[in-house]
């Protein structure tokens, strides 16, 4: 049983890490603000949740796991909300998303 839990947490940690790095690269390479926001917003919360889940499995039951659960809960609340507020503020601030790109139209989610 322990072996599976370890393997599982290992997988979670790695995918979380990978997601984080991809988010990082995304934030750098994307042309305009809103696509970057999309990249960062999504990976941020998901990568955090995955890594923390991996840690929870490592820590087993107990106070530490409860604390980790709190953090996941808190992050899953604040992450998307911050991204949402940021998007509205940017829109409001007059920052036009890049719609009319000639060759490929980045799918603005």
């Amino acid at each position, binding site marked *: 049983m322990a072996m599976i839990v370890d393997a599982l947490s290992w997988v979670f940690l790695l995918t979380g890490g990978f997601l*984080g790095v991809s988010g990082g690269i995304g934030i750098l390479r994307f042309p305009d603000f809103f696509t970057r926001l999309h990249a960062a917003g999504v990976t941020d919360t998901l*990568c955090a949740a995955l890594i923390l889940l991996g840690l929870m499995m490592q820590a087993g039951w107990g106070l530490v796991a409860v604390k980790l659960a709190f953090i996941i809960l808190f992050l899953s609340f604040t992450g998307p909300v911050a991204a949402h507020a940021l998007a509205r503020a940017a829109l409001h601030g007059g920052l036009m998303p890049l719609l009319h790109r000639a060759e490929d139209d980045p799918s603005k989610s």
Partner: protein
Amino acid sequence: MFAAAILAVLVTMGLALIRAFRGPTVYDRILAVNMFGTKTVLFIAVYGFLSGRPDFLDIALVYALINFISTVAVLKFFEYGGPGRAATTPDEGEGD
């Protein structure tokens, strides 16, 4: 295994930092700060496990809290100039 996670987090923090420096518009910088904040939360959590003292998590929680508050604060200030005002109509005192 922890080391791999920490390395990944550190790399993302570096990338976020570069974006923070280069970011043309202010919103890019806010985004980079927000992402950097959540990554530090992860860094603390994983580092706590790496050094065998998992009771560091209170700090990680405070980080997440502070990160959220500063993001909201930045948005508020940037838009309406006054933290006191509950963001009244946009036509009055538009963000400079």
